[in-house]
């Protein structure tokens, strides 16, 4: 589908602004009512989902051009976190604002209209297959000393994909290391692709580089097949989203994909992980967008929109709705709740309408100031719960929080779910 | 203009017998019970309908003759009906006293300015309705006068705004043209043959509207402004209102009154706040013993006796049942209110000594019998009233008391009345200072006290929202932009400043 295919949809946006807020039902305060970091930071209408829908229409009607100076910033200063999409769909069954915004990005990138900040990033990616400005050769350093199957040569049921962030962010290596320990201890037949693990491509896709994404996706799928894996487990929510949603959508390649927290939830339920220690800690959990509302399973659909009763728009056959209802929210919470001593407080914006960490869709790389501001807003919200630690299930979120905290000179603790599991064993 | 020229011209408009320059009558309009300086009008004219008013204003506009509209009968207390300009003609509207329409189903009444509460309430009662009223108005008080001047009503639950129960109206503006407002605006114009016609007669319009189920209740407009707000508390300076529609209450089938005595006002305020919050009240206000005594006592002696008998403060609370299950309503309210009272640590009583709840209903919540209660104690009375919020009442009370003491005025003689309004967002505070008009020293004391206390209270945060007499300089002095805007509005609706010139901030002709 291209941007043209969304013209009808764009005509039908009511410009109601629901996409700027969390679902109004859930508003609990003045402070945390907002849902869209983009418009909160940049103020102008164009920096909202509906604004970008208008821009898409203006482009399609050739009122503006892809090459208009300033347009890329308007389009890309957005995390594609999808809170707008959830809020819109509280009432609308026929709109896909996130899809439109994604296609708007493709249109710009296809026309060579990318922010110049991308140049070194993409150059490195092409050379080193990662988004971290790092060397491919160092990709498996985190796993040094762990006796793990190397799936480039061996086979295993489960492939553990740790992703670019965890492969190269030394401070966070403990996360995949813990994952490995837990999986091995539970007797799981697991391995990694090591240095040959590729970027999942998900972030590239969100940044507008669909072509690059496809390349990585194909490579990954091949590698997994060669390793004989039936299940992909990932410690990264971005990767999870790519595997769970984008791969089947773009490549029609269904895989059994689990986020590590889902896997842990199962292991705990089966009694394969037991906790020995109590962790007396007040925590709050941040739903990573890509695991939560955007982590819904992909369900293929082919059909058409038709009109009944004159003009009422319906899909035939029934089209699956991606409105955040089926994201992964409970698995990480269940894992956390099973840890003795932990007290879990919810932030006002949680689950399908959680506020974004600020790292998504290339914003951290392209617009760090905006990215940290977004993280800062979440940190404030975490503080408001009275929690001592902010826990998440995505290294991108965690890194962004850590850096934002650092910048603020703040000391809120940031953990991954795996950290607490490790500590309590 | 000479008196005779004027009289002649007026007689062309209004029946000769209703144009008057008889010195006694002139004198009666030349002063009132306020400290405002007296000034004799040239003549008094009593029109009988809207078209006469229109003709009068048109004439005055042409001749630049000041007009002072008066709708209530004497005694007056606020100086607003005493001419400030030379050569004024009093437009006494008391003959315009028709009740034009009562619509029970939609609970609305249309009346002319000369209608008093004593006229309208019985007529409404026959239909099962009544109008919310200010506290014990004098018998001659014009209903429209009271409403237009934003006098507070005793039931804050029905004070949806400070202008309630006012809805639509017709006014004659300073150039002699007419304006109908709210949903009566565009609706009542007939156009034909490409000409803008004048308004169709009211009855005709009402008849037409009845057929299309339209009412006279929507007050907003015409267009993007609210004239009815501009004519409120205007003391007749923005237009002469010739009729207005008012929203009525359903006449309660069951009504009970409680008196809550207290040595200090604080618990009564808490209690009042709670009731306001839940809207568990009909009449609801607080008075001090003196004020209640003034209202109940038929003469000086009785007043003194009541004053001795009554506690320092009394909250008066009415609960009422209307509509389908009135008894059930009162019964649940009684139970809940008792719980609330208990929570506030106060006693609900149906009587305090000889003062029974029924007294309140029969006497205090009705227009005052003659002589007007304000005059019964000493023959004269100067009021100080303003708006604030209920939580600040005590501060103003202590200021008033210390001002009185400083001026040698016996503080226990001050009547005090605290009326929550606008559904509890604000409250009207009123101090009554009775005095003997013949005792020069006393007059002087009260005059000085009135002035000094007004300044002190204003400094403390009293909002003189209806700035009569000396308060106009206090009130308008505090808000020059509002004053400037008002003058521009005045110049629009009364370009020659003929409508009660000299009042409010309208001293100088533009």
């Amino acid at each position: 589908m291209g941007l043209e295919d969304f013209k009808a949809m764009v005509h039908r946006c009511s410009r109601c602004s629901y996409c700027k807020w969390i679902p109004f039902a859930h508003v609990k305060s003045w402070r945390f009512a907002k849902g869209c970091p983009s418009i909160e930071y940049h103020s102008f209408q164009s920096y909202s989902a509906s604004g970008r829908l208008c821009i898409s229409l203006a482009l399609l009607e050739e009122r503006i051009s892809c090459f208009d100076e300033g347009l890329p910033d308007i389009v890309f200063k957005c995390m594609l976190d999808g809170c707008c999409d959830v809020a819109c769909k509280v009432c609308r069954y026929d709109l896909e604002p996130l899809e439109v915004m994604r296609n708007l990005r493709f249109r710009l990138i296809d026309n060579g209209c990318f922010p110049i900040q991308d140049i070194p990033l993409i150059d490195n990616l092409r050379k080193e297959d990662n988004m971290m400005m790092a060397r491919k050769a160092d990709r498996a350093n985190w796993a040094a000393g762990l006796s793990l199957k190397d799936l480039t040569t061996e086979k295993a049921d489960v492939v553990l994909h740790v992703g670019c962030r965890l492969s190269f962010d030394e401070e966070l290596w403990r996360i995949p290391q813990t994952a490995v320990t837990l999986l091995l201890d539970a007797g799981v037949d697991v391995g990694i692709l090591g240095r040959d693990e590729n970027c999942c491509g998900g972030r590239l896709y969100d940044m507008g580089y669909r072509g690059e994404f496809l390349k990585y996706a194909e490579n990954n799928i091949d590698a997994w097949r060669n390793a004989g894996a039936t299940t992909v487990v990932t410690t990264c929510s971005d990767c999870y989203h790519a595997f769970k949603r984008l791969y089947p959508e773009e490549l029609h390649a269904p895989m059994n994909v689990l986020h590590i927290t889902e896997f842990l939830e199962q292991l705990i339920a089966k009694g394969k992980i037991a906790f020995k220690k109590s962790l007396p800690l007040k925590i709050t959990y941040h739903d990573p967008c890509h695991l939560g509302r955007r982590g819904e399973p992909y369900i293929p659909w082919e059909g058409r929109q038709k009109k009944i009763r004159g003009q009422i728009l319906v899909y035939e056959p029934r089209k699956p709705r991606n409105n955040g209802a089926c994201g992964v929210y409970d698995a990480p919470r269940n894992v956390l709740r099973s840890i003795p001593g932990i007290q879990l407080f919810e932030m006002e914006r949680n689950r399908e309408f959680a506020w974004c960490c600020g790292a998504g869709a290339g914003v951290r790389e392209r617009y760090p100031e905006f990215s940290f501001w977004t993280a800062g807003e979440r940190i404030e919200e975490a503080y408001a719960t009275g929690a001592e630690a902010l826990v998440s299930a995505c290294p991108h979120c965690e890194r962004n929080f850590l850096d934002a905290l650092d910048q603020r000179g703040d000391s809120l603790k940031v953990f991954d779910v795996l950290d607490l599991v490790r500590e309590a064993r | 203009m000479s008196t005779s020229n004027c009289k002649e011209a007026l007689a062309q408009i209004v029946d000769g017998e209703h144009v008057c320059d008889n010195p006694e009558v002139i004198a009666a309009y030349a002063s009132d019970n306020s400290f405002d300086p007296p000034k004799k009008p040239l003549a008094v004219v009593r029109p009988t309908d809207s078209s006469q008013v229109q003709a009068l204003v048109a004439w005055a506009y042409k001749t630049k003759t000041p007009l002072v509209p008066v709708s209530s009968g004497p005694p007056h207390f606020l100086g607003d009906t005493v001419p400030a300009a030379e050569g004024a003609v009093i437009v006494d509207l008391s003959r315009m006293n028709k009740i034009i329409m009562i619509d029970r189903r939609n609970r609305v009444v249309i009346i002319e300015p000369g209608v008093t509460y004593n006229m309208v309430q019985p007529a409404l009662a026959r239909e099962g309705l009544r109008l919310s009223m200010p506290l014990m108005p004098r018998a001659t008080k014009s209903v429209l006068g009271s409403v237009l001047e934003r006098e507070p009503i005793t039931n804050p639950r029905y004070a949806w705004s400070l202008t309630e129960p006012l809805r639509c109206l017709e006014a004659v503006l300073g150039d002699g043209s007419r304006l109908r407002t709210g949903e009566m605006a565009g609706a009542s114009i007939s156009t034909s043959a490409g000409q803008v016609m004048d308004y169709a007669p009211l009855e005709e319009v009402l008849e037409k509207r009845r057929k299309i189920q339209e009412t006279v209740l929507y007050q907003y407009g015409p267009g993007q402004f609210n004239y009815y707000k501009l004519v409120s508390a205007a003391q007749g300076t923005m237009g002469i209102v010739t009729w207005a529609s008012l929203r009525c209450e359903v006449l309660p089938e069951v009504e009970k009154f409680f008196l809550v005595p207290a040595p200090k006002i604080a618990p009564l305020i808490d209690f009042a706040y709670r009731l306001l919050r839940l809207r568990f009240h009909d009449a609801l206000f607080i008075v001090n013993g003196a004020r209640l005594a003034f209202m109940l006592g038929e003469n000086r002696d009785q007043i003194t006796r009541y004053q001795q008998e009554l506690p320092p403060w009394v909250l008066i609370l009415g609960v009422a049942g209307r509509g389908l299950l009135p008894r059930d309503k009162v019964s649940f309210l009684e139970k809940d209110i008792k719980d609330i009272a208990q929570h506030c640590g106060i006693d609900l009583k149906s009587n305090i000594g000889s003062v029974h709840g029924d007294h309140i209903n029969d006497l205090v919540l009705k227009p005052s019998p003659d002589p007007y209660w304000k005059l019964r104690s000493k023959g004269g009375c100067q009021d100080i009233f303003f708006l604030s919020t209920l939580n600040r009442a005590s501060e103003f009370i202590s200021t008033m008391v210390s001002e009185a003491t400083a001026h040698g005025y016996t503080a226990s003689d001050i009547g005090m009345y605290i009326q929550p309004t606008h559904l509890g967002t604000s409250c009207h505070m009123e101090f009554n200072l009775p005095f003997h008009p013949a005792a020069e020293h006393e007059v002087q004391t009260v005059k000085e006290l009135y002035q000094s206390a007004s300044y002190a209270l204003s400094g403390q945060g009293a909002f003189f929202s209806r700035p009569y007499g000396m308060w106009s300089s206090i009130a308008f002095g505090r808000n020059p932009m509002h004053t400037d805007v008002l003058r521009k509005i005045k110049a629009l609706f009364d370009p020659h400043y003929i409508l009660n010139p000299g009042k409010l901030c309208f001293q100088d002709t533009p």
Partner: protein
Amino acid sequence: MPLEREVYKELESVVGPEHITEEPATLFSYAYQWMAELVPDVSGGGKFFDRPEAVLVPGGVEEVQAIVRLCNRYGLKFHVYSTGWGPWAAPPSGGQILLDLRRMNRILEIDEQNMFAVVEPYVVAAQLQAEAMKRGLNVHISGAGAGTSVLANACCFQGGGPDCIYFDSPQNSILSIEWVMPTGDILRTGSLGSGLGWFCAEGPGPSTQGIIRGALGGSGGWGVVTKIAIRLVHWPGPPVMPIEGTVPAYRTKLPADQFRATFPAFPSWQSFADAIYHIYDSEIGYIAHRQYVMWGDELQAAFLKIVSDPDRQLCDLEELLHMPEIQKLTDEMRRCFQLILVGMTPRDLEYQLKVLDRILEQTGGWNVALVNEPAMQQYVLLYMMRLCFKNLNFTATGGFIDTYNSVASPDIWASGEIEAGKKLLKKYAGRIADAGDQAMGPIAGQGGGGVTGWEDFLFYDPHDPDSVQAAIEVSDEGDRLKAQQGRPPGGMLLGLARTTHTEEKVRAQKLVHAREYQWQRKLKQIFDPNGIGSGNYLWAAEPSTNGEST
């Protein structure tokens, strides 16, 4: 025409470079509006009205004042909006700048005791309601829903809604106002202007609030209201509305002994009208609205099933409509409305329920049992209490307007106008959605009752030119029918869309009759001498001698 550089520089120095833009993409995002396609004279049948020349996002009253002064200096027209939903939010014509007030978004005060809040323009109802509830208070929410500006609804636009029976219309709930006049001077009304706080709307003397809004507010063309105090009412529920349910079928469970959603339904329109009078006279109800019929009396039951169930979709509509129990429900609900009873105490609710029973007994009515199902009860309570699902107005086709509205006494419900509206819509069914009677509206538009009425919804597809054309035709035919009966025009929304963007003579004359309108025009001349208010045509049109505005 782009702004002169000198003017741009000066404006920029007021708000800072990050809060002004001429970026074409952004300007178009401000020109896009609901209903634009229905005013083809301006939009060419597309989604864009005229775009502004620049957009500014001022941060406070001082900046607003400075901008307005510059506009006066340079003869530059400006238009202003808060949340900006609707055709009246787009600049009425080209050559204007637009002020987007989204940065002025604070709740400055909530006076719990005296029951009011002080807000800036970009505080939306959901926010204020959430904060008010923490203090046991609640705020009127306009029919446009929780996402709209409290201030703009009260001062600058229409503002009525389902809760007026208890809360009153927002006009009456305004206390003091801070208003940057079109001259750039700042008027503070009521007690605020005297430096005494926000509690009082009027005075001293005549209330200058009277020139800030009337039946309608200035719709962005009449200065800038920068702060208001708004009256609140009691909220006997929990400090935070507890939300349950899966997106989108959120629900709230409120204490059953104080909150009850009901669907009174009636055998005839006469009994429907009689019931309304009983409700007024007996003074029951916190919210009273004929809400769900917006989907049409033929579809409302099915639609309600869909939107309150997270697993359902619009494509289930046909299947549902064939189900006998839905057909029965459709019949039961045909002449019903939504009445939310809230007891300040449990005894209060008990009393109100008893009154409702008595009303139903006397009128032969019934309470539609559907609403007693726990999930439905909770869904309806949330819907009506927060008006958080208002974009459902657009769900069927992506576009709606109203067509055959009535605002009058409750007897209007029994006047035959409902059937007339339905007949009109049926005539065009196919080109617009075929849904039946879509007369949605408040049971009371005023505190304690008073005027009531409805908007006859019409669903059209903004993407389908023929459907768009049909919407225009229905609205115009509706107005003609109304005129034949001597009634005011029916199609409010299209009327406003047109009058705010075109010199639609007939409309302007009908909406604001020429004779009284002259006063408004004169006020405009006095308080906007340089004509810099964007001057949507409600303000700008001049009446001619033949009674039409020109």
